[in-house]
């Protein structure tokens, strides 16, 4: 049994900024009569029995501490996370800084600086217009989408009309590479430090009748590196290569009410940097790309409905011009993926006779490929701060992307969380 310990250091610049600003803020907050700083947190344990994996269980002990305060002038939020995870053949200990930022509120401007998540869009769970923070889509099976915080400065200017303009400068942070892809074992070349910046802007305005419309533009790094197979002289003759690249994205999103609920649409047109490495030639020495090199669109249309008795449900159609949502790479080298359309279902029901009990369901169904990812969870709160849960995840279908996630997801889950 091997052991590994990981300490994820916060970015020094971000830490200095936070600590310096924190001192300033504490003084300002004291003058403004802010709320006292509060400490809260959560400890949790989960046991995941993986029915399709060689390492057939995963036992995780997690902890989270949050220290925060706010006033009319601003506030701060610092989150530390820890995880101790054991599997049959390995043990991992991990500490990391979660969101840690400082807020400053001026007359018409709100500024947030530090490690943060910036979640844009109107869709439920997957947002094409949200391009700053990497998102692991397999986290959808946890019923709470999770984004990786990145160091960033965000400033929002609010107009009296209700419109707002937000600008973001962020530092690229690579997403955890998806398991079981063709990428396994490859170290992609990362961008130089000076080139890691990302920018994004969003304008929002209320339309007559109430709905907000959001227009976005971003110039960021893609979450996952692109891949190609490069011919070489010696065995294995084709060497898998990977590197990160930039992309621009233009987006629009809005949500509006209809007679029975809320309907939303969110779309983005993404223009990735064109790389010569991904151009497929006709000669035997040409590369075989595993990633696309062309612009593509992502569109989500959805609506929700709450049935009598309290059953909440939402349905979304997600068109992904790039191919699979779960695996960003071609199934076969040199053969671009066709666009995929998904039906995403979310449902939540609090049992009337037992209001401490809740049932949740998430479904990601690939309409073209006839594969699906289904997750269900039952949770029960015997005490105010204690939540017990049990769930099952099913990855159904024979497509490559489902085969890829099945070992890490399919199986039973039980656990508990205690918040304080």
């Amino acid at each position, binding site marked *: 049994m091997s052991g590994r310990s990981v300490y994820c250091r916060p970015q020094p610049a971000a830490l200095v900024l936070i600590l310096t600003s924190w001192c300033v803020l504490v003084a300002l907050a004291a003058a403004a009569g802010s709320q006292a700083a509060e400490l809260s947190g959560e400890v949790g344990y989960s046991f995941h029995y993986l029915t399709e994996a060689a390492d057939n269980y995963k036992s995780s002990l997690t902890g989270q501490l949050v220290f925060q305060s706010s006033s009319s002038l601003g506030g701060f939020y610092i989150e530390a996370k820890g995880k101790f995870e054991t599997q049959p053949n390995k043990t991992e200990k991990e500490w990391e800084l979660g969101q840690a930022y400082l807020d400053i509120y001026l007359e018409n401007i709100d500024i947030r600086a530090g490690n943060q998540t910036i979640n844009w*869009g109107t869709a439920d769970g997957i947002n094409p217009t949200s391009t700053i923070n990497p998102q692991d889509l397999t986290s959808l099976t946890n019923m709470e989408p999770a984004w990786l915080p990145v160091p960033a400065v965000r400033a929002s200017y609010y107009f009296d009309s209700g419109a707002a303009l937000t600008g973001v400068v962020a530092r690229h942070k690579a997403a955890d590479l998806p398991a079981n892809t063709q990428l396994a074992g490859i170290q992609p070349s990362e961008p130089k430090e000076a080139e890691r910046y990302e920018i994004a802007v969003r304008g929002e305005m209320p339309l007559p009748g109430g709905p907000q419309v959001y227009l976005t533009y971003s110039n960021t790094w893609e979450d996952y590196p692109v891949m190609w197979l490069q011919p070489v002289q010696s065995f294995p003759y084709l060497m898998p290569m990977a590197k990160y690249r930039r992309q621009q994205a233009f987006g629009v999103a809005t949500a509006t009410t209809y007679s029975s609920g809320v309907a939303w649409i969110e779309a983005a047109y993404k223009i990735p940097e064109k790389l010569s490495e991904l151009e497929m030639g006709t000669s035997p020495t040409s590369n075989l790309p595993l990633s696309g090199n062309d612009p593509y669109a992502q569109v989500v249309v959805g609506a929700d409905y709450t049935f009598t008795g309290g059953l909440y449900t939402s349905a979304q159609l997600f068109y992904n011009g790039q191919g699979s949502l779960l695996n960003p790479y071609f199934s076969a080298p040199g053969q671009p993926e066709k666009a995929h359309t998904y039906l995403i279902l979310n449902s939540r029901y609090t049992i009337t006779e037992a209001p401490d009990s809740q049932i949740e369901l998430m479904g990601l169904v690939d309409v073209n490929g006839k594969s699906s990812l289904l997750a269900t969870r039952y949770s029960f709160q015997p005490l105010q701060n204690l939540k017990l849960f049990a769930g099952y995840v099913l990855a159904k279908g024979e497509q490559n992307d489902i085969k890829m996630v099945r070992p890490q997801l399919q199986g039973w889950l039980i656990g508990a969380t205690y*918040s304080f």
Partner: protein
Amino acid sequence: MKRTKWISTRSYRRFPALAQVVVMSISFLLAVTCCITFPPLNAAAAAAAAEPSAQEILDSISSSNILSGNGQATLEMTVVSKQGRKKVQQLELYRRDDGKGNVSQLLVFTAPADIKGTKFLSIGTAGKETQMWLYMPTLGRERLISGSATQGQFMGTDFTYEEISGAISFSAEYTAKRLADTTKDKLSCYVLELTPKSDKAKYGRLKLVVHKESRIPLVIEFFNRAGKAEKTLTLDGLHKSQDGIWQPKTIILNNLSSGSSTIIDILQESREEVSEEMFTLRYLRR
């Protein structure tokens, strides 16, 4: 003899009654806020006021929905399950009313830790559907609540989003009939039975016990279309504050279907006018 006088919006603003704001916010009838009593003027007026029609009583409740106040309160909301398990939530309530039917309300959860920072904003514009947004810190953005979702359970309590936002207007949706007067906690009350004007109304029948002097509904029984009792809202400990404002100590909503109940205690209140900018998406995102 005493005479009850309904003061004008402008006058009322000088006496914003937050406890009553709480009542009206939490008890569906945001309404009851503007009931401020004054010393007796003359017996004839008192006699006229003593026997109003059912519709006049209902209008006086709902019209006070328009004449409302501003303020802030700290509330403790306890949800008691059928099995007797308790879940306690603390929240801040902010409310603002411009006196023209534009009523904004913000609820900010401060405890327990797992829901701390969750905010619910409702903005009611005269003659339009109330807009509602729920901000959840884990999601990092606001979510529009509308249509059937407004009938969903609010944060695990027995209230729906619509009820907690105070977006229901009984006067607009129901016709009132007077039943025999009664007393509750030694307070003299009118009794009204409301029946729906159209199929759009949520309930099949309502029974209101309305305190005569303050026009605050002390008991509201909600019956579904099949005639079965669904919920009962009770205001306990109605008393006059030092400022002469009627206010309850506790608000209890019993959900007869699930056997659970939600109890709201007013821990602290302030009658200072709340800044308009608190009722914006900007503030919601902070």
